[in-house]
């Protein structure tokens, strides 16, 4: 295990010496959130604010022939009306997906695509003015499914920015090891087809943004998980230097990936603030949020696996087809993620992945908790259950025989370091009694494992800046931590404060935080890919240790002892109160400022095209057992209990970690039980919180959270991620438990009562007892790119 010289080594800290790291402490932002004091983006209202409503396309696919805003402009109370000609520059989250216009003036690609925007004295007036805008459309053939998107369009492709053919956005075909040989040697081969319906984040907070433009300085307050990327997109679209733009992530009422893209309404309020000179605000309605989407892709999957007589995997071929909706968004990454992390749980010696993403006339898909990996995880785990059943092996045992080992490299060249997959398996199996379960009619238990990244190893656009930076300032005895990281509810502010407080002998609430602010805090790439604890946590640790060194040095001199004799704890630096030591140091050096950075090691993955997706400085591991009852007459599932063991590396705050596990379990259960972003004729089937079936208190079962600490060699104090991983095994574990209960497979998420009943009907007719897709479409995948095995690859270690 090589360590780069700049990374702090958590092994220097003996387990018992941590004062606050790992303790179940309250969040640093809890009081504000509990008393109503915290300002979310929609709570910000500056004097003289104009309010924006956006006119959106009623057509799933149409050419825009003309837009007449004259009546709207002449209405009393209307300050400005803009269309695509005011914001012509295209943008998108990835360098390869610059395909969105803040307001479309040539073509609309989904119901809800923005066309014009009005700023007025109030929302009511802005809405009335929107209705007065006349848009002439020429409707085009609407593409509504993966299968339809794979045919040549009868009118025209949805985009002409991509190579196609037709509505194909992205293709991938990668092979690692000799897959044909593996299948030839296999004792047993199985093929399955699965479908995972799309679903959405449904954060409680609707997106909101307010902009001001004063003296050539633009400021945007927004509900965004990625202020740095919004900053870049604004600079491009508005043609303003980065130095004249400040993006502030307000307190965020839930993200889950839904606030990771630069959004139309953010561009719109900025342009309108520049035009009117007034503060301009836009808050999306709940229906608009459903169409803003960027959620889980619907994915069709086909998997073929060959195993030897002992159940050891010899070869796997995995195909995916993603319904991307109307725009590129994170799509190229999403596509590769459906094939990247199969290998981080199982040792697959020969692996072939083919993926395709297509455009359809639906709200754009993007990253949702687990980004592109829950769908293949569902397919893979259920597929392995079926193999185990066929060869007469216990499903847990089959998996154990194939688990990856710590400090190894996968066939697709991903570096695995700490790995608690054995431990999380042992713990859930023991706690749940899975192996010795006694079943009553309709009762079932299911098991599954998963892993997830602790931050993407590469940034979204190529740059050599650190992935995260922290500045720690001590002035007049007070400590302020500046970091671009954005707390979206996951608790990243508390993580940063805990790290700084641990090192400086303080309490987390002693640390003032300036986060998610591109004007004042150094760069952090954002709250996505479960990167913040690992990356910003390491940057904070480095900055805090430097500050500790300065304060200890001054205190040692004052005390006439060596720095190693100075103890830092309980608000004291040696014999000095923290504040006295800080003032003493400031008298000598001026304001105290230290800086910490984190850049992932460069050897995390391969160098082939597509190798940028999957590498991470560490992987978390989760295992789940679900216990449920299914009524064979109604098909209704009653969830009894979920056991979830998670390899957290080390908890920075065990209370926050438990909350993330429970939330991940809940969100996974929601996806498998009924959440669906489904469409009919280009319209969302139920864009309301009543129709979109998320779980309430009444459906949510008991959760037994088990934390396994593997002390990752590079994580801050050994910590790894928890925001996304625990969702992943829950979905296949439910499908598996339904099979355990009734002997039928529902190979399609969500696993709803009607599908269970159809599978039972299938069984009654003497067939397989299955509900799911029958076949995988023919896809013009490109020629297979055969990647050299890691041994043969040039090593940078």
């Amino acid at each position, binding site marked *: 295990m090589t360590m780069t010289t700049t990374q702090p080594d958590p092994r220097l800290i003996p387990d018992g010496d941590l004062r606050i790291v790992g303790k179940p402490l*309250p969040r640093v932002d809890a009081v504000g959130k*509990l*008393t109503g004091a915290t300002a979310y983006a929609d709570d910000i209202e500056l004097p003289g604010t104009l309010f924006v409503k956006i006119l959106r396309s009623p057509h799933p696919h149409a050419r825009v022939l003309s837009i007449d805003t004259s009546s709207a402009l002449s*209405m009393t109370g209307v300050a400005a009306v803009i269309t695509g000609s005011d914001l012509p520059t295209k943008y998108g989250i990835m360098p390869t997906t610059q395909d969105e216009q803040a307001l479309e003036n040539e073509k609309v690609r989904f119901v809800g695509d923005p066309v014009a925007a009005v700023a007025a004295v109030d929302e009511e007036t802005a809405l009335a003015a929107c209705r007065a805008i006349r848009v002439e459309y020429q409707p085009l053939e609407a593409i509504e499914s993966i299968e339809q998107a794979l045919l040549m369009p009868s009118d025209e492709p949805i985009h002409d920015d991509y190579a196609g053919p037709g509505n194909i956005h992205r293709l991938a075909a990668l092979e690692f090891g000799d897959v044909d040989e593996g299948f030839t040697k296999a004792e047993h081969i199985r093929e399955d087809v699965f479908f995972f319906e799309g679903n959405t984040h449904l954060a409680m907070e*609707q997106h909101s943004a307010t902009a001001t433009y004063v003296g050539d300085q633009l400021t945007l307050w927004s509900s965004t998980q990625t202020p740095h990327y919004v900053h870049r997109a604004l600079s491009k679209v508005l043609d303003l230097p980065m130095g004249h733009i400040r993006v502030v992530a307000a307190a*965020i009422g839930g993200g889950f990936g839904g606030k990771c893209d630069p959004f139309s309404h953010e561009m719109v309020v900025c342009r309108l603030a520049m035009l009117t000179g007034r503060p301009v605000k836009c808050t999306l309605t*709940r229906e608009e949020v459903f169409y803003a989407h960027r959620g889980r892709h619907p994915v069709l999957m086909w998997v073929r696996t060959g195993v030897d007589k002992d159940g050891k995997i010899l070869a796997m071929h995995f195909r995916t087809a993603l319904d991307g909706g109307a725009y590129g968004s994170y799509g190229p990454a999403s596509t590769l993620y459906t094939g990247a992390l199969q290998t981080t749980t199982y040792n697959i010696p020969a692996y072939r992945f083919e993926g395709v993403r297509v455009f359809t006339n639906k709200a754009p898909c993007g990253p949702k908790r687990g980004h592109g990996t829950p769908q293949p995880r569902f397919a893979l785990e259920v597929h392995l259950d079926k193999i185990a059943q066929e060869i007469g092996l216990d499903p847990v045992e089959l998996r154990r025989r194939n688990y990856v080992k710590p400090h190894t490299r996968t066939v697709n060249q991903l570096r695995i370091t700490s790995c608690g997959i054995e431990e999380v398996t042992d713990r859930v199996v023991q706690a749940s009694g899975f192996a010795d379960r006694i079943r009553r009619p309709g009762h079932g238990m299911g098991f599954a494992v998963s892993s997830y990244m602790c931050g993407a190893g590469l940034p979204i656009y190529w740059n050599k800046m650190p992935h995260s930076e922290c500045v720690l300032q001590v002035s007049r005895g007070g400590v302020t931590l500046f970091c671009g990281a954005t707390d979206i509810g996951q608790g990243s502010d508390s993580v940063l404060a805990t790290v700084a407080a641990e090192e400086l002998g303080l309490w987390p609430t002693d640390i003032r935080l300036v986060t998610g602010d591109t004007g004042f805090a150094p760069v952090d790439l954002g709250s996505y890919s479960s990167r913040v604890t690992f990356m910003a946590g390491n940057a904070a640790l480095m900055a805090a240790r430097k500050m500790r060194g300065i304060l200890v040095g001054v205190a040692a001199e004052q005390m006439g002892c060596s720095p190693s004799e100075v103890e830092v704890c309980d608000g004291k630096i040696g014999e000095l109160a923290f504040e006295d030591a800080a003032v003493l140091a400031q008298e000598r050096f001026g304001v105290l400022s230290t800086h910490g950075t984190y850049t992932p090691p460069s050897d995390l993955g391969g160098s082939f095209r597509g190798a940028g997706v999957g590498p991470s400085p560490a992987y978390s591991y989760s295992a789940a057992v679900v216990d449920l009852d299914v009524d064979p007459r109604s098909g209704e599932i009653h969830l009894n209990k979920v056991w979830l063991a998670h390899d957290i590396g080390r908890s920075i705050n065990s*209370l926050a970690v438990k*909350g993330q596990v429970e939330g991940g379990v809940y969100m996974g259960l929601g996806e498998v039980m009924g959440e669906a972003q489904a469409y009919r004729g280009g319209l969302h089937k139920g864009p309301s919180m009543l129709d979109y079936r998320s779980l309430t208190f009444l459906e949510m079962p008991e959760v037994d959270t088990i934390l396994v600490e593997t002390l990752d060699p590079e994580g801050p104090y050994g910590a790894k991620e928890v925001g996304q991983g625990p969702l992943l095994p829950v979905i296949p574990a439910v499908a598996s438990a339904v099979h355990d209960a009734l002997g039928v497979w529902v190979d399609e998420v969500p696993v709803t009562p009607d599908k269970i009943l159809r599978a039972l009907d299938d069984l009654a007719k003497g067939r397989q007892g299955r509900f799911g897709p029958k076949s995988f479409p023919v896809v013009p995948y490109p020629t297979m790119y055969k990647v050299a095995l890691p041994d043969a690859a040039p090593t940078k270690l």
Partner: protein
Amino acid sequence: MSQAQSSAIGSREVLRLSVNGQDRELLVKPYTTLMEVLREDLRLTGTKHGCEAGECGACTVLIDGVPKVSCLVLPAQAEGTTVTTIEGVANGSTLHPVQQAFMDAGAVQCGYCTPGMVLTAKALLDTNPTPSEGEIKQALAGNLCRCTGYVGIVEAVLHAAEAGRALA
């Protein structure tokens, strides 16, 4: 923008109510919701909006002690009532036992559902100081949360009930 200002003036009516212990008298449009009155006229932004259709519970306030989604309450229905918002729950800077229990149990993550949850839980404990877990879930079932999986919230309300019993 004198031209602009005139458009906002439609027919208005007087709304008299008590909010967090203070009598208020406001001029409001008859179709304005109580949520808008609280957030926009009184700037009590702790009352959150998540759907404006009575589906999520984020805008819950107590009207005469009963939890109601304020996005479905019109001025005529709020006239003469006593309203408690999240800003009126703590005693100065001392958290209410329900708030304290939420903090200690880790029942707050993004915090957007929190005001509605706290108020609904407070109303439950005001009328039933010893609720069962089932009663807690029933009482809070109209409030959605996307972060916590509800587990920490149920624990918090149970703890708050215990703390209340210890005080009694």
